[in-house]
């Protein structure tokens, strides 16, 4: 399932742009590929993140996946609920399981992200 109205990366993050804040999580497609999520290594508020570099990681039983920053910016919020309930990523990837909020450094970078239709085509759905 791909949610309309969000932006997407080729590394399967979704991005919800709210003014100069980007809320980031991983897509339903990504959580299905990984299987049961058992642990999330969250970034810290104030961390500077670089577009395309790992800012968090999501651990399934048999695999670990990086969560890459979709844009340059600074972490201004993390979803601490995921520390105790990492499986929210499986059950509610687009809503309850947002991972971090990034204060966007350069809003021009938003144009580099895919929209829902492009992401659907990208994953072949």
């Amino acid at each position, binding site marked *: 399932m791909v949610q309309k109205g969000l932006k997407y990366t080729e590394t399967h993050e979704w991005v919800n742009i709210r003014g100069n804040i980007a809320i980031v999580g991983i897509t339903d497609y990504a959580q299905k590929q990984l299987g049961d999520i*058992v642990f999330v290594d969250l970034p810290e508020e104030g961390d500077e993140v670089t577009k395309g570099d790992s800012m968090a990681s999501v651990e399934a*039983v048999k695999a670990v996946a990086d969560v890459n920053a979709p844009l340059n910016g600074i972490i201004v919020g993390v979803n601490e609920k995921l520390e105790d309930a990492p499986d929210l990523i499986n059950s509610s990837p687009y809503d309850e399981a947002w991972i971090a909020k990034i204060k966007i450094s350069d809003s021009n970078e938003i144009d580099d992200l895919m929209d829902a239709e492009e992401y659907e085509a990208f994953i072949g759905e």
Partner: protein
Amino acid sequence: MRPTPFYEIHKQKNAKIDSFAGFLMPIQYPTGIIREHRQVRDSVGMFDLSHMGEIIVRGEKRLDFVYNLITNDASKLAVGQTLYTPMCYPDGGIVDDLLVYRMKDYFYLVVNASNIEKDFLWMKENQIEKMSLENASYDTALIAVQGPKAEEVVQKLTTLDLAKIGYYHFAFGQIAGVDVIISRTGYTGEDGFEIYFTNVDKAEEIWNLVESAGRKFDIIPIGLGARDTLRLEMKYPLYGNDIDKTTNPLEAGLRFFVKLDKDNFIGKSALVKVHQEKISRKLVAFEMLDKAVPRQHYEIYADDKKIGEVCSGTMSPSLNIGIGTGYVPREYMKTGTEIYIKVRNKMKRAIIIKPPFYKQGSVKR
């Protein structure tokens, strides 16, 4: 890539199928690894293990051959009994770990899928007069039924009295008119059976019969993912992760399966030397104290230096903590020793424990 006789069933069940040791195997089903794992611990699950290799040793001198081939003592086996054993190179490195079944007229050797061809060649190289070898690996189907309810499920399928088959024992029987070996063995830490048969045309029928027999306990198929988490919670070694040709069975914690007082076996003199000089490192079991999941090849640290690498690691679905194994120098091998695992450039605390990780298994010893 070889499909197993149950490949179509796995596809119908929407399993995630991947190649493993040249076979197309179900890694997990849509139920997910954690649910599959818990099903086996709490009740009963069924596995397609048809990728495992089966090699038959026949002839007058079959016992002499097997005796020399393995580190455990096959001369002590009764007909109808099975043993677990490493098989070593002359330098003590491990060729494979396997099960040896003693039948009336032959030995039946069950080897790892990843080692079938290598093992068969190794056996050929060490073949003696008046015996023969047959590789039956690609004509044999294997279903494992594992969990505390396994006996109740399998009993519905056979007229054999399963209560009379002890741990590491087996009997010949029939399911759906097909000759089967029913063996009380497994790789999960739970009670259970492994069912071997060569009439693979009937494979789907037998699978469906097991599934029907297990309906009362909501039996589900279990993929290789959960098979790995189940075996690791028991610290059962996995060839390629925990043991290989660069490790010997003594440092791998398999001392019990190496009978150094045997007259002869391949690797004996090397292993006697290791035993006399004491092992320099040991495969230990560790639990994470910090919240983190150890993975294969992550580095192990103590006293600010690297002391080893993780061999097997996972999140334990039963204990809900990270668990793992790795070789560490003998000064660090004691239970209670604190070590560090380097996880994405951060040092995470761990402690060496006495295995198994999961101590409530229903396996009947």
